Structures are given as C-alpha cells and as structure tokens.
C-alpha cells in the first residue's frame, strides 16, 4: 500500500495502482521528540507528526509515500526523510517525490508530465490503467455535491488550512455555521475534471499545473476568496493564519480588503497555534457574539 502527503496530487494515478491507502494523517496533540530533533521551527506543523510516526514505525506497513513539490514543507520533508533513511536514523516506507511544476509555461507542464510518467512507472501504472482511473475519478468528481444551505448565518474561515473541525465547532456553539477547509480537505481535493481524451499522463499534467490549490499556485487569492464568500453567503469572516504560514501571509492585506469591501465583519488572527490552544476559541466566540448583537 502507498500513501501521500500534500495538496495538488494525482489522485487518479494513486487509484490506478489499486494500492492507495489514502493520505497520511496527523496527531499534533502529543510529544514529538523525533520532530524536535530533526525539524526546524518553521516547518508546517503536520510534518512534525509525520516525522514522529515515521520514526516510531507507525508507517512501516506502507510501501511508499508520495510527496508533492507544490508545497514547500512537503518537498523539504521528502529530502529530510530520504537522508534520515540513508543515515539509518529511521526506517519505514520509501519517500517518493512528485515533481509538480506550477509555472504557467510549456516547459513546466512538460516537466510535470515527465514526473507523472516516472511515478507511474515506479508504481506500475500504465496509460490504460490511468485512463480508466481518470474516467472513474471524473465520475466521482461529478457525483460530489455541495452541502445544502442551512438556516444559520455562515462564518467563512480562511487563511491557513485548519487542523480539523475544532474551529467549526466553536462557531457552531455560537449558533453559526462555519465553512472553512481543513488540511485534510485540501489534500483530498481531486480538482476539476481531467481531460479524458488523448494521453492520460499529459492530461493529468495539465490539470495539476493549472490548479491553484497549493502554496505554489499562481492565482488572485483575494478575488477567489471574495467569490467564495459570495457563494456561501457569508455574514462574517475569520482570517486565521498560523505561525508557520509562509504563503497566505503575503496576501493578508488583499484578502482582508476584499472581505471588508463586501461589508463583511472580519476577525484577523495571525501567528496562531495550529492546535488552537492559544485562546482563539474565546476570540471567535466574542467576535461572533459581537456580530450577532
């Protein structure tokens, strides 16, 4: 079985292996001495859990784990794990890198296609198997339905990917419906349909290269957030960024302005703890109570 870590990955190719165990998971509410030993402080928090699991042998049942280059922490972690295995400091599955190139340029699309072919060869996936998986994956994409609108006012949570639904629950306790993507949501996102005509590796490369869902995507994030706020009918918004965020921080002024230009009340919380044990629950509750008043 194989697993993966990071956003913007080729789920159709993983499915085509018949050995897809799904994404790695994380537990950050514990001591992680292996992470303390090898990882520096600015790594995304989920990487700490992965390193600890790797060192503890909790991933030994896996044959390989695929990391994406479309996320800096993920690609950096790949090199660390390779070196730690080489040095004999850890064992566990083989780390693999999928070299996704994000620049909107023909050479980057070609690079991604070559990387997909290499990964396909490594995982014994040929064009026919990938085509079949893409067809099935597209059907899954079309079958995915949006949640129906509820009666509660909606607070949009944006910024860094959330660890889980713990902030959703804080909002819900105040009588709000929270919409915000968790890291698991981002990793599980299959993206738009993959072109089913022509070479499947080339089609998948085009899809990955143009997707915006990752730290390396080229897109107008403020426009996208404003559109999302309109789509979900947000009545308030939380811009929540963790200490380790190196991406959204550069768009914070534009994100905030886009939401405020829509007339939305916005709570901005920066340099926060991914585990949410820094009092953010009380701040959200007070904010939502103020908006509702």
């Amino acid at each position, binding site marked *: 079985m194989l697993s993966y870590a990071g956003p913007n990955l080729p789920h159709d190719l993983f499915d085509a292996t018949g050995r897809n165990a799904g994404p790695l998971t994380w537990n950050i509410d514990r001591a992680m001495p292996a992470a303390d030993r090898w990882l520096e*402080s600015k*790594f995304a928090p989920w990487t700490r859990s992965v390193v600890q699991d790797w060192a503890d042998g909790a991933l030994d049942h896996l044959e390989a784990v695929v990391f994406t280059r479309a996320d800096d922490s993920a690609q*950096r972690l790949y090199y660390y794990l*390779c070196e730690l295995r080489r040095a004999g400091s850890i064992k566990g599955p083989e780390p693999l890198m999928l070299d996704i*190139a994000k620049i909107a340029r023909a050479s980057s699309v070609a690079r991604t296609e070559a990387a997909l072919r290499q990964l396909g060869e490594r995982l014994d996936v040929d064009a026919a198997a990938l085509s079949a998986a893409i067809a099935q994956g597209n059907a899954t994409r079309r079958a995915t339905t949006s949640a129906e609108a509820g009666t509660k006012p909606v607070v949009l949570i944006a910024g860094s990917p959330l660890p889980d639904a713990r902030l959703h629950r804080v909002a819900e306790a105040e009588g709000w419906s929270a919409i915000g993507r968790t890291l698991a949501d981002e990793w599980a996102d299959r993206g738009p349909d993959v072109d089913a005509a022509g070479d499947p590796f080339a089609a998948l490369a085009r899809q990955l290269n143009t997707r915006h869902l990752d730290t*390396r995507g080229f897109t107008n994030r403020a426009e996208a957030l404003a559109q999302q706020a309109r789509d979900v009918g947000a009545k308030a918004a939380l811009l929540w960024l963790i200490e*380790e965020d*190196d991406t959204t*921080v550069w768009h914070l002024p534009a994100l905030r302005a886009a939401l405020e230009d829509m007339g939305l009340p916005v709570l901005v919380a920066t340099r926060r703890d991914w585990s949410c044990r820094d009092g953010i629950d009380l701040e959200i509750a007070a904010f939502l109570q103020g908006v509702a008043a």
Partner: protein
Amino acid sequence: MSAATTNQSGQRSRKDLACTAAANAYQKQFGADLKRRVVDDGEPFAIVQADTPHEIFHVMGIPIITNQWWSAYISAKQLSNHYFEVMAQAGYPKNSCKYCSLGLACTLANDPKTAPWGGLPKPTVLVARMTCDCIQHVFGQWADALGSEFFPMEAPAWEHKDPRWFAHSKDQWEQVYDADRIALAVSEMRDLIALLENRTGRKFDEAKLHYLMERINEQEGYIWEAAQAIGTARPCPVSIAEQMPNTMIPQWHRGSDWAVNHAKRFRDEVMERVASGAGCATQEKIRLMWIGAGVWHDPGFYQALEERMGAVFVWSMYMPFAGPQYIREVQGRPMEALASRVCSMNEVLHLPPWMNGWMTSEAERCGVDACVVLLPPENRLSQSGTKITAEALEKAGVPVLMIDADMVDAGNWDHDRMVGLVADFLVQRGLA
C-alpha cells in the same frame, strides 16, 4: 595593518587586507554608477534573486539589481526597521520572512524622500527561482507594485542525491545536477533571453557567454585556491569578516575584468599572509565554522573572541562555495554549464544530503574545532537543513552551537550577549 568599518547596530570589524578596502570602494562606485544608469539615465534593468543566472544579463549588458544586495543596501542606510514597520502598517504579519522582502517594502512605502535612490523605477522584469513558499508571492506583488512583470523559474526536484556532490560538480555537472533539471533550466533561460531581447532590443550572444564562463572559472579558481590555503594554514590568515566581502563583491560582478583581477589580488594577499605566518589572532587556539548568512548588522561579532580566547571564525559558506558551485568545465555547452550552476545553488546550501555532506567535509578540510549555526526564527529557507547538519557535525566530533537570530533584523541581537553565548559554549564543550 588594521582598518575599521563602522556599523551602528553592531561592532566594528577589523580589516587586515588592503584589498578589502579596494573591494568596498569599488562596490560604492558601482552603486553610484548603477543608480545613474537605472534611475538617472532610465536604462532598462532587472531585479533578480542571487540564485538566478546573472550571467545572461552580464552578456546582454543589462544592469541588474540583486534583491539581496538591495536589501543589504537598505540595511546599510539604517532603514530596515522603518520598512519592517511599513509592512506591519500595511497589514502584513510581523513574522513574515524579512530577508527577501525589504525591497518590496521599500516600493510599497512609496516614499521617494526616504527611499535609497528615491526608490527603484520600473524594471524590465523581476526574476526569481521558486525555492521557497514566500518568493513567488513577494516577487509577484513587487512586480505588480512596480508595474512590471515577474519571470519565475522552477526549482525542480533533485533525485540524484550525492552527499559528495562537491567532488564532482566541476567536471561531471550533468550527472551531479541531473540532465533533465539542467535541460529545464536551459529552456527557461532561453525564454528569459527572448523576453529580454524583445523588451530591450539588446541581443544575447552565446559566444560571449562562453567567454564569460571561462573568465568566471578563472576568478573562482583564485578564490578557491585561497580557500584551500586558508583551510590548511595555521594560523588562519584571514577571518570570515574579510573573506565575505572579498568573495561576494566580485561575485556580484563575476567574470568582469575587475572581478577577475580582484580575486587574483585577494588570493595573492592571502598567500602572502600564509607565507609570513600572519594570523587573525595573536594566538590561535580554536577554529570556528559559521553556518548561515552573514550577520550583516554586526560584522565585528566574528572577530570578538580572537584575542580573548584565540577563537577564530575560519569558515563561512561564501568563499569555499566558489569552488564547487561556480567552477564549471564548459565542455562546449555554456548554457548547460551555466544552468548546472544555478539550478541547485540554493539546494546545496539548505537541503540534505548536499548541505550536511559538504559542510562536514569542509569542517574536516579546515580543521574546524566547533561550529556556530544561525537559526533565523522566521525564515524556513534559512533554517532548512540546519538540525540535520548540526547532528552530522556533532557525529564527526565538531561541537555545534545554534543561535536564534536574524541576518538582517537586529531586533533580537545583542552583540555582547551573542559573543557571551559563544564564549560560554566553547568553555562548556571543553575547548577553552
């Protein structure tokens, strides 16, 4: 001979070499000339990261402003804190990476009265390799603010992991750096050349690049020769406080007549000091390695323990890097040889196995007794690889001290406290 450089936020650094003053004087004149060309005369120019192919611009005669150099220039004008505050007032969190964003901050401030040179005019293009999560966002916004265009370059994954890359990079660069990664970089450089030719009317000549590459090899050869001498000489003839400017100032002008001649002059002065037995310290007892960017706001830090403890910083990355990462046998393919230089310039310094492989080897080559590592708390790229490298050095018998500090932000830096930290560490580890 001694001279002194003033730094308001740190301590003075002593200068033992005559060529150091010459390098600084040249760079000062270069700054004035660059301002005249891009601000006063309105020549087309580019803003580029340090790890991009500067050689293309040199061949085309297009002036470049290197982001890291511009940041240092802003810092030297004592404007860093002002611009950090500008970013905070604009709504950027205070923990955003500062090393690469000072130039963006200067542009966003839009205050010609305060800005060096009155601020930068619109460049033809901005160029950066995507080596971290920050840089494409910083350069993208900077390009928007200047009304220009951002030309990103990929930092592709590197499958060929040779911890001893430095032993083969000069002549086996196609194997060391992966042929397909080199091909991608060449393709991107050709796109960049086309953009520059279209926008500026200036032409790229591959024969000129070939000549420039050979001149760069000559220049880096002098630096590498001096680096080897410093590694074996006892006492150390030149502290890293002087290795850095005599390597990096010519590096910004690599391949030019001045740069080649200066490298040769530097080599000669180092050799003279080796021959005469001149050392940084009166009695050298401890040889130190510095891992990380230079602490630009306190150059005197590196020499503070020379007399007190005989502790001399003999190694930082800048000078020995000239050998393995710059010298290239051109092999009739200057574009590919150049691509092999730039396509991993950052990776070898910040990722295992290249970083730890090279630095442990260098520690052994230079007879290093202990190492001090800079760990900037808010910069993932600059932090990267440091813990694994520290562990490798310790395993090789080199004690390591890691200090939380930033290379451009003097906010959490106190000269006496930092010097004291190093002194205490050397005592605790039985070296002093």
